Protein backbone atom coordinates (compact mmCIF):
# COMPACT_ATOMS: atom_id res chain seq x y z
CA UNK A 1 0.00 0.00 0.00
CA UNK A 2 1.32 3.33 -1.01
CA UNK A 3 1.40 5.24 2.22
CA UNK A 4 1.44 8.61 0.57
CA UNK A 5 -1.75 7.78 -1.25
CA UNK A 6 -3.18 6.59 2.00
CA UNK A 7 -2.30 9.85 3.66
CA UNK A 8 -3.58 11.95 0.85
CA UNK A 9 -6.85 10.08 0.87
CA UNK A 10 -7.60 11.21 4.39
CA UNK A 11 -6.04 14.59 3.99
CA UNK A 12 -7.66 15.64 0.79
CA UNK A 13 -9.59 13.22 -1.33
CA UNK A 14 -11.81 11.97 1.45
CA UNK A 15 -11.48 14.97 3.67
CA UNK A 16 -13.66 14.35 6.67
CA UNK A 17 -15.26 17.76 6.63
CA UNK A 18 -15.42 18.80 3.03
CA UNK A 19 -16.14 15.46 1.46
CA UNK A 20 -17.55 13.11 4.08
CA UNK A 21 -19.33 15.79 6.14
CA UNK A 22 -18.27 14.26 9.44
CA UNK A 23 -17.51 15.94 12.72
CA UNK A 24 -19.34 19.08 11.80
CA UNK A 25 -20.20 20.29 15.26
CA UNK A 26 -16.67 21.12 16.43
CA UNK A 27 -15.90 22.49 13.00
CA UNK A 28 -18.55 25.11 13.44
CA UNK A 29 -18.27 25.61 17.14
CA UNK A 30 -14.62 26.37 17.64
CA UNK A 31 -13.49 28.15 14.52
CA UNK A 32 -13.89 31.72 15.65
CA UNK A 33 -10.16 32.07 15.20
CA UNK A 34 -7.33 30.16 13.58
CA UNK A 35 -5.75 29.33 16.90
CA UNK A 36 -8.88 27.76 18.28
CA UNK A 37 -9.50 25.86 15.09
CA UNK A 38 -6.01 24.47 14.88
CA UNK A 39 -6.01 23.69 18.59
CA UNK A 40 -9.14 21.66 18.21
CA UNK A 41 -7.82 20.05 15.06
CA UNK A 42 -4.63 18.96 16.76
CA UNK A 43 -6.51 17.65 19.76
CA UNK A 44 -8.66 15.58 17.48
CA UNK A 45 -5.66 14.43 15.50
CA UNK A 46 -3.99 13.30 18.69
CA UNK A 47 -7.01 11.30 19.74
CA UNK A 48 -7.42 9.90 16.26
CA UNK A 49 -3.81 8.90 15.97
CA UNK A 50 -3.56 7.38 19.43
CA UNK A 51 -6.79 5.48 19.19
CA UNK A 52 -5.87 4.21 15.76
CA UNK A 53 -2.59 2.96 17.17
CA UNK A 54 -4.12 1.28 20.16
CA UNK A 55 -6.94 -0.20 18.14
CA UNK A 56 -4.68 -1.78 15.57
CA UNK A 57 -2.54 -3.16 18.38
CA UNK A 58 -5.36 -4.77 20.27
CA UNK A 59 -7.70 -5.53 17.42
CA UNK A 60 -7.04 -9.24 17.35
CA UNK A 61 -7.84 -9.70 21.03
CA UNK A 62 -11.21 -8.10 20.94
CA UNK A 63 -14.28 -10.22 20.35
CA UNK A 64 -16.60 -8.92 17.75
CA UNK A 65 -19.51 -8.14 19.99
CA UNK A 66 -17.64 -5.82 22.31
CA UNK A 67 -15.63 -4.22 19.57
CA UNK A 68 -17.44 -0.94 19.52
CA UNK A 69 -17.76 -0.49 23.30
CA UNK A 70 -14.07 -1.23 23.60
CA UNK A 71 -13.25 1.32 20.97
CA UNK A 72 -15.38 3.85 22.73
CA UNK A 73 -13.55 3.25 25.98
CA UNK A 74 -10.22 3.63 24.24
CA UNK A 75 -11.24 6.80 22.49
CA UNK A 76 -12.88 8.27 25.55
CA UNK A 77 -9.73 7.65 27.55
CA UNK A 78 -7.62 9.59 25.11
CA UNK A 79 -10.17 12.35 25.01
CA UNK A 80 -10.06 12.58 28.77
CA UNK A 81 -6.29 12.67 28.71
CA UNK A 82 -6.34 15.50 26.20
CA UNK A 83 -8.90 17.24 28.33
CA UNK A 84 -6.78 16.96 31.44
CA UNK A 85 -3.60 18.04 29.70
CA UNK A 86 -5.26 21.04 28.15
CA UNK A 87 -6.80 22.06 31.42
CA UNK A 88 -3.45 21.92 33.01
CA UNK A 89 -1.25 23.52 30.41
CA UNK A 90 -3.46 25.43 27.99
CA UNK A 91 -6.26 26.64 30.23
CA UNK A 92 -7.32 29.55 28.05
CA UNK A 93 -7.60 27.42 24.94
CA UNK A 94 -9.50 24.88 26.97
CA UNK A 95 -11.97 27.51 28.02
CA UNK A 96 -12.50 28.60 24.43
CA UNK A 97 -13.04 25.11 23.10
CA UNK A 98 -15.23 24.26 26.05
CA UNK A 99 -17.81 21.63 25.40
CA UNK A 100 -16.32 20.47 22.18
CA UNK A 101 -13.37 18.65 23.69
CA UNK A 102 -15.48 15.98 25.37
CA UNK A 103 -17.50 15.82 22.19
CA UNK A 104 -14.53 14.44 20.29
CA UNK A 105 -15.79 11.15 21.67
CA UNK A 106 -18.86 11.21 19.52
CA UNK A 107 -17.14 12.65 16.50
CA UNK A 108 -18.05 10.05 13.93
CA UNK A 109 -14.67 10.57 12.36
CA UNK A 110 -12.77 9.08 15.26
CA UNK A 111 -14.96 6.08 15.84
CA UNK A 112 -15.38 5.64 12.13
CA UNK A 113 -11.66 5.43 11.51
CA UNK A 114 -11.11 3.05 14.38
CA UNK A 115 -13.86 0.82 13.16
CA UNK A 116 -13.47 1.04 9.43
CA UNK A 117 -9.73 1.35 9.11
CA UNK A 118 -7.61 0.68 12.11
CA UNK A 119 -9.42 -2.49 13.04
CA UNK A 120 -8.64 -3.92 9.63
CA UNK A 121 -5.25 -2.59 8.69
CA UNK A 122 -1.63 -2.78 9.66
CA UNK A 123 0.06 -0.62 12.20
CA UNK A 124 1.80 1.71 9.75
CA UNK A 125 -1.24 2.19 7.58
CA UNK A 126 -3.28 2.99 10.63
CA UNK A 127 -0.80 5.56 11.80
CA UNK A 128 -0.65 7.15 8.38
CA UNK A 129 -4.38 7.05 8.08
CA UNK A 130 -4.89 8.62 11.48
CA UNK A 131 -2.40 11.34 10.65
CA UNK A 132 -3.92 11.99 7.25
CA UNK A 133 -7.47 12.13 8.47
CA UNK A 134 -6.55 14.16 11.50
CA UNK A 135 -4.45 16.65 9.59
CA UNK A 136 -7.13 16.89 6.93
CA UNK A 137 -9.57 17.72 9.67
CA UNK A 138 -7.12 20.23 11.10
CA UNK A 139 -6.67 21.78 7.69
CA UNK A 140 -10.42 22.23 7.36
CA UNK A 141 -10.54 23.87 10.75
CA UNK A 142 -7.60 26.02 9.79
CA UNK A 143 -9.29 27.31 6.66
CA UNK A 144 -12.61 27.88 8.31
CA UNK A 145 -10.98 29.55 11.29
CA UNK A 146 -8.79 31.62 8.97
CA UNK A 147 -11.64 32.90 6.87
CA UNK A 148 -13.77 33.65 9.87
CA UNK A 149 -11.00 35.38 11.74
CA UNK A 150 -9.98 37.50 8.76
CA UNK A 151 -13.51 38.53 7.89
CA UNK A 152 -14.82 38.65 11.41
CA UNK A 153 -12.10 40.46 13.26
CA UNK A 154 -9.76 41.65 10.55
CA UNK A 155 -6.87 39.73 12.00
CA UNK A 156 -4.99 36.54 11.36
CA UNK A 157 -3.55 34.40 14.11
CA UNK A 158 -4.36 37.23 16.43
CA UNK A 159 -2.34 39.70 14.40
CA UNK A 160 -4.59 42.55 13.49
CA UNK A 161 -4.02 43.95 10.04
CA UNK A 162 -7.29 45.67 9.38
CA UNK A 163 -8.18 48.38 11.83
CA UNK A 164 -11.69 48.41 13.18
CA UNK A 165 -13.95 45.62 14.10
CA UNK A 166 -14.36 43.45 11.04
CA UNK A 167 -17.63 41.92 9.96
CA UNK A 168 -19.00 40.69 13.23
CA UNK A 169 -21.37 38.22 11.69
CA UNK A 170 -18.53 35.97 10.75
CA UNK A 171 -17.43 35.26 14.28
CA UNK A 172 -21.00 34.69 15.36
CA UNK A 173 -22.95 31.49 14.73
CA UNK A 174 -24.47 32.40 11.34
CA UNK A 175 -21.06 33.21 9.92
CA UNK A 176 -19.83 29.73 10.77
CA UNK A 177 -22.57 28.07 8.77
CA UNK A 178 -22.32 30.41 5.85
CA UNK A 179 -18.55 30.23 5.58
CA UNK A 180 -18.56 26.45 5.76
CA UNK A 181 -21.28 26.33 3.11
CA UNK A 182 -19.20 28.30 0.67
CA UNK A 183 -16.01 26.43 1.50
CA UNK A 184 -17.71 23.12 0.76
CA UNK A 185 -19.00 24.54 -2.48
CA UNK A 186 -15.48 25.58 -3.45
CA UNK A 187 -14.16 22.18 -2.51
CA UNK A 188 -16.84 20.51 -4.62
CA UNK A 189 -15.80 22.59 -7.54
CA UNK A 190 -12.12 21.81 -7.07
CA UNK A 191 -12.81 18.12 -6.67
CA UNK A 192 -14.89 18.10 -9.79
CA UNK A 193 -12.18 19.80 -11.77
CA UNK A 194 -9.41 17.50 -10.61
CA UNK A 195 -11.51 14.38 -10.93
Amino acid at each position, binding site marked *: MNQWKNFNKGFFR*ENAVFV*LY*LGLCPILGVTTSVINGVGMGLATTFVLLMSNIVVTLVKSFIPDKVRIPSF*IVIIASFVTIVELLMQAYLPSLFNELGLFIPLIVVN*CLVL*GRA*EAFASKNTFTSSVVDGLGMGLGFTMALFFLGGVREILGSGSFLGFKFIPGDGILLFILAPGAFITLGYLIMLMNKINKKTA
Partner: protein
Amino acid sequence: MGTTKEIKHPGVITSIDSSKIKVNITTYSACSSCGAKGICSISDVKDKMVEVSNTGDFSVGQEVQVILHQTLGFKALYLGYVQPFIVVLITLIITSSLTRNEVLAGLISLGALAPYYLVLYFYKEKIRNKFTFAIKKQEQ
Protein backbone atom coordinates in the same frame (compact mmCIF):
# COMPACT_ATOMS: atom_id res chain seq x y z
CA MET B 1 -40.55 10.08 -4.25
CA GLY B 2 -41.86 12.86 -2.09
CA THR B 3 -44.50 12.36 0.51
CA THR B 4 -46.86 9.48 0.46
CA LYS B 5 -49.24 8.28 3.04
CA GLU B 6 -47.31 5.08 3.10
CA ILE B 7 -43.80 4.38 4.12
CA LYS B 8 -42.16 1.91 1.87
CA HIS B 9 -39.05 -0.02 2.45
CA PRO B 10 -37.23 -2.47 0.32
CA GLY B 11 -36.61 -5.79 1.97
CA VAL B 12 -35.72 -9.36 1.24
CA ILE B 13 -37.73 -12.35 2.28
CA THR B 14 -35.66 -14.59 4.50
CA SER B 15 -38.12 -17.26 5.47
CA ILE B 16 -41.66 -18.33 4.87
CA ASP B 17 -43.85 -20.66 6.82
CA SER B 18 -47.54 -21.39 6.53
CA SER B 19 -48.74 -18.22 8.17
CA LYS B 20 -45.78 -15.90 8.43
CA ILE B 21 -43.28 -14.37 6.14
CA LYS B 22 -40.11 -12.94 7.58
CA VAL B 23 -38.66 -10.04 5.73
CA ASN B 24 -35.24 -8.61 6.33
CA ILE B 25 -35.43 -4.89 5.96
CA THR B 26 -32.56 -3.53 4.03
CA THR B 27 -30.98 -0.35 5.21
CA TYR B 28 -32.01 2.93 3.73
CA SER B 29 -30.82 3.37 0.23
CA ALA B 30 -29.93 6.92 1.22
CA CYS B 31 -27.47 5.44 3.67
CA SER B 32 -25.88 3.35 1.03
CA SER B 33 -24.38 6.38 -0.60
CA CYS B 34 -23.17 7.83 2.67
CA GLY B 35 -19.49 7.76 3.37
CA ALA B 36 -20.03 6.71 6.94
CA LYS B 37 -22.15 3.71 6.23
CA GLY B 38 -21.83 0.81 8.53
CA ILE B 39 -20.22 2.82 11.25
CA CYS B 40 -22.96 5.22 12.13
CA SER B 41 -24.62 3.02 14.66
CA ILE B 42 -23.12 2.34 18.03
CA SER B 43 -23.87 -1.32 17.64
CA ASP B 44 -23.07 -3.39 14.64
CA VAL B 45 -26.05 -5.63 15.14
CA LYS B 46 -28.47 -4.71 12.45
CA ASP B 47 -31.78 -6.06 13.49
CA LYS B 48 -34.44 -5.12 11.09
CA MET B 49 -36.76 -8.04 10.73
CA VAL B 50 -40.38 -7.71 10.01
CA GLU B 51 -43.01 -10.39 10.22
CA VAL B 52 -45.86 -10.28 7.82
CA SER B 53 -48.74 -12.62 7.53
CA ASN B 54 -48.46 -14.90 4.57
CA THR B 55 -50.64 -13.73 1.74
CA GLY B 56 -49.28 -16.17 -0.73
CA ASP B 57 -47.16 -16.11 -3.79
CA PHE B 58 -43.86 -15.05 -2.34
CA SER B 59 -40.60 -16.90 -2.29
CA VAL B 60 -37.52 -16.76 -0.13
CA GLY B 61 -34.95 -14.32 -1.38
CA GLN B 62 -37.49 -12.28 -3.19
CA GLU B 63 -37.21 -8.50 -3.17
CA VAL B 64 -40.31 -6.94 -1.75
CA GLN B 65 -41.56 -3.61 -0.53
CA VAL B 66 -42.61 -3.52 3.07
CA ILE B 67 -45.38 -1.03 3.49
CA LEU B 68 -46.47 0.71 6.62
CA HIS B 69 -48.99 3.46 6.92
CA GLN B 70 -47.59 6.78 7.93
CA THR B 71 -50.11 7.13 10.72
CA LEU B 72 -48.93 3.79 12.08
CA GLY B 73 -45.40 5.13 12.02
CA PHE B 74 -46.46 8.01 14.20
CA LYS B 75 -48.44 5.64 16.37
CA ALA B 76 -45.36 3.51 16.88
CA LEU B 77 -43.40 6.58 17.73
CA TYR B 78 -46.03 7.51 20.23
CA LEU B 79 -46.07 4.14 21.95
CA GLY B 80 -42.36 3.57 21.74
CA TYR B 81 -40.99 6.96 22.68
CA VAL B 82 -43.49 9.65 23.43
CA GLN B 83 -45.64 7.77 25.91
CA PRO B 84 -42.76 6.38 27.98
CA PHE B 85 -41.32 9.86 27.96
CA ILE B 86 -44.52 11.19 29.44
CA VAL B 87 -44.56 8.41 32.02
CA VAL B 88 -41.02 9.23 33.09
CA LEU B 89 -41.75 12.91 33.23
CA ILE B 90 -44.88 12.55 35.32
CA THR B 91 -43.30 10.11 37.75
CA LEU B 92 -40.37 12.44 38.08
CA ILE B 93 -42.51 15.42 38.88
CA ILE B 94 -44.66 13.53 41.34
CA THR B 95 -41.88 11.73 43.16
CA SER B 96 -39.64 14.74 43.37
CA SER B 97 -42.40 16.91 44.77
CA LEU B 98 -43.33 14.15 47.23
CA THR B 99 -39.92 13.00 48.30
CA ARG B 100 -37.78 16.04 47.64
CA ASN B 101 -35.04 13.57 47.09
CA GLU B 102 -33.37 13.71 43.75
CA VAL B 103 -31.75 10.29 43.75
CA LEU B 104 -34.96 8.61 44.66
CA ALA B 105 -36.99 10.62 42.21
CA GLY B 106 -34.54 9.99 39.44
CA LEU B 107 -34.29 6.30 40.06
CA ILE B 108 -38.01 5.83 40.49
CA SER B 109 -38.81 7.71 37.34
CA LEU B 110 -36.35 5.67 35.35
CA GLY B 111 -37.71 2.60 37.04
CA ALA B 112 -41.19 3.66 35.94
CA LEU B 113 -40.15 2.54 32.52
CA ALA B 114 -40.29 -1.03 33.70
CA PRO B 115 -43.99 -1.08 34.55
CA TYR B 116 -44.66 0.86 31.39
CA TYR B 117 -43.02 -1.76 29.32
CA LEU B 118 -44.77 -4.41 31.36
CA VAL B 119 -48.11 -2.86 30.49
CA LEU B 120 -47.05 -2.68 26.92
CA TYR B 121 -46.14 -6.32 27.17
CA PHE B 122 -49.66 -7.21 28.22
CA TYR B 123 -51.01 -5.34 25.26
CA LYS B 124 -48.63 -7.16 23.01
CA GLU B 125 -51.31 -8.94 21.09
CA LYS B 126 -53.37 -5.85 20.61
CA ILE B 127 -50.40 -3.99 19.30
CA ARG B 128 -49.51 -6.83 17.07
CA ASN B 129 -52.93 -6.71 15.54
CA LYS B 130 -52.81 -3.02 15.07
CA PHE B 131 -49.46 -2.78 13.40
CA THR B 132 -49.82 -4.65 10.24
CA PHE B 133 -47.31 -4.48 7.53
CA ALA B 134 -48.08 -5.33 4.03
CA ILE B 135 -45.62 -6.52 1.50
CA LYS B 136 -45.72 -5.96 -2.14
CA LYS B 137 -43.55 -7.22 -4.91
CA GLN B 138 -40.82 -4.94 -6.00
CA GLU B 139 -42.01 -2.62 -8.71
CA GLN B 140 -39.94 -3.30 -11.71
